[in-house]
């Protein structure tokens, strides 16, 4: 499966939530190879500013149309410039990159998907793949736990609705669905409904994935977490996207995984969470002064 550098045409650009946009790009070579959970590197514009490409996971892969969609939140100058682009623009992409979600054996029982904010991005394509999987037992539900700080940051339900998909909404301020975190809703559903997932897929803020990962490890549930990092290349050359790896044999030794080539999908047990939390790999917050 070869990585490609492809000049894509912007087909659609749409505001879909607060500071959140969906881009549809005509990029047939990348669309033909891409799988759920993989990502692309997008060049915001020609020249030196901004210098580096930005990584985005595939929100939807439309092979027949030769198109891919990404979902992004404006968090800095690069994403702000992206939000100003008009359909018809040419955008250089590199992809598909990374390992993608493991979908094997996901039809054997209920599956949980957890999305925090713009973390819904890679889970939409995953939902579509899971629901169209012929090996999926009839009646086995896919549960999507989808939360954000406030209702305005959530995608409209019509963009996600699908038969056999149960969506559990939550917001920190109670403006939509359960008031609280995605993790709290998951614990409630497990407790009250007695549903136990065979696998948990998640994407969202690091703190959320950390909490969910620890919960799943305690419960013995297989995890597929989509993690992010700053990165310069996306294909294993710059070594900038390091995450501390759990090494049970040498718990104190330094060993790093790389989001672009070892991930971006990781099991909760492969990451040394405490060391990430100490270093606070937080995405830059976009503020104007």
């Amino acid at each position, binding site marked *: 499966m*070869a*990585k*490609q*550098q492809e000049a894509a045409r912007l087909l659609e650009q749409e505001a879909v939530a607060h500071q959140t946009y969906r881009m549809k790009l005509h990029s047939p070579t990348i669309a033909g190879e891409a799988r759920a959970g993989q990502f692309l590197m997008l*060049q915001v514009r020609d020249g*030196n*500013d*901004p*210098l*580096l*490409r930005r990584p985005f996971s595939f929100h939807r892969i439309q092979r027949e149309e030769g198109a891919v969609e990404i979902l992004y939140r404006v968090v800095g100058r690069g994403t702000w410039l992206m939000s100003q682009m008009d359909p018809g623009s040419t955008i250089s992409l*590199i992809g598909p990159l990374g390992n993608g979600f493991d979908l094997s054996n996901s039809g054997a029982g209920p599956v949980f998907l957890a999305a925090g904010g713009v973390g819904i991005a890679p889970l939409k394509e995953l939902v579509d793949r899971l629901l169209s999987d012929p090996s999926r037992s009839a009646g086995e539900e896919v549960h999507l736990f989808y939360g954000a700080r406030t209702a305005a940051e959530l995608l409209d339900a019509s963009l996600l609705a699908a038969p056999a998909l149960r969506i559990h909404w939550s917001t920190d301020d109670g403006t939509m669905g359960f008031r609280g975190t995605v993790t709290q809703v998951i614990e409630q559903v497990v407790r009250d409904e007695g549903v136990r997932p065979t696998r948990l897929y998640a994407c969202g803020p690091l703190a959320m994935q950390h909490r969910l990962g620890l919960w799943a490890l305690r419960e013995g549930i297989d995890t597929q977490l989509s993690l992010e*990092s*700053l*990165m*310069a*290349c996306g*294909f*294993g*050359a*710059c*070594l*900038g*996207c*390091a*995450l*501390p790896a759990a090494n049970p044999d040498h718990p104190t*030794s*330094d*060993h*790093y995984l790389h989001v672009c080539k070892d991930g971006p999908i990781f099991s909760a047990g492969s990451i040394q969470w405490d*060391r*990430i939390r100490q*270093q*606070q*790999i*937080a995405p*830059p*917050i976009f*503020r104007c002064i």
Partner: protein
Amino acid sequence: MGQNTTAADRSPDLSVHLGPLRLKNPVMVASGTFGYGQEYEDFLDIREIGAIVVKGISLAPRSGNPPPRIVETPAGMINAIGLENVGLEVFLDAKLPHLRDLGIPTIVNIFGNTVEEYAELARRLDGQPGVAALEINISCPNVKQGGMVFGTDPTLACEVVGAVRHRTSLPLITKLTPNVTRIGEVARAAVDAGSDMLSCINTVAALAVDIYSRRPKLANVIGGLSGPAIKPIALRCTYEVLQAVRCPVIGIGGIASATDALEFLLLGARAVQIGTANFTDPAVARRVVEGIERFLEVEGFQSIEEFIGALDLECTFPFAEASCQSLDLDG
């Protein structure tokens, strides 16, 4: 076309001599920006590149610095990777054979914490089939021991290069740091100690902070700035090094186009290395080679050798004839 082929019909000769090395073109890719070559094989035929300088190798594997390791800055990036690498054994067993099979001139960048480690690396790499030259890294700003310490003191630089020279007959390139007051002195020291060539520059020591979190943006606090932002510094350093020594010099720093590369060659650098630009345009090396060829054709040069060092320093001010001609070399 008939039999009367004139010089103008032939493609210009891009090959260069670099001391004992002969390369098919003057475009290399810089250490730490091209992995061990394989990372780029989906994007271009890496045999089109003049030479590959592989990610710096130490005797033992190194896991590198904690994250965050990189940050973007205006027209540049700061990195503090910390020389993460697979170590010499894995390099020899798993990485070098592939490059050797492809027949690409492979320059091995070496790094040690002590003079003895540099010497041992040179000894182990001496006579390895497929190794065209060694590049001695005495200029990495991102590690606590070794690294730049050796590159900022002419006496220590001399000691490292001398120890390496003693252990190998391979052509030696010493990679210089810009983080010194007089780069020419370190350049002379390296050449006096037996370096056949010099490459300059490594990254410029730099720092970035976040006013909201009140934290440095890199876990290592200080890192090395690379990218277009450093090109003018790199050109100045290359100029000073060329004034200080007579050996071949390889220009590095912010090269992302044929125009950038030609600027270093104009000064007298006999080759260039492309670094950060490989991350954003993985086929940039091919574009640069093609752009150089087009420039030589249009400007009527039959070989790159005619252009190297053609800088006119006898100019008068104001310029009598300002050239406003500009070719699209990078399209």
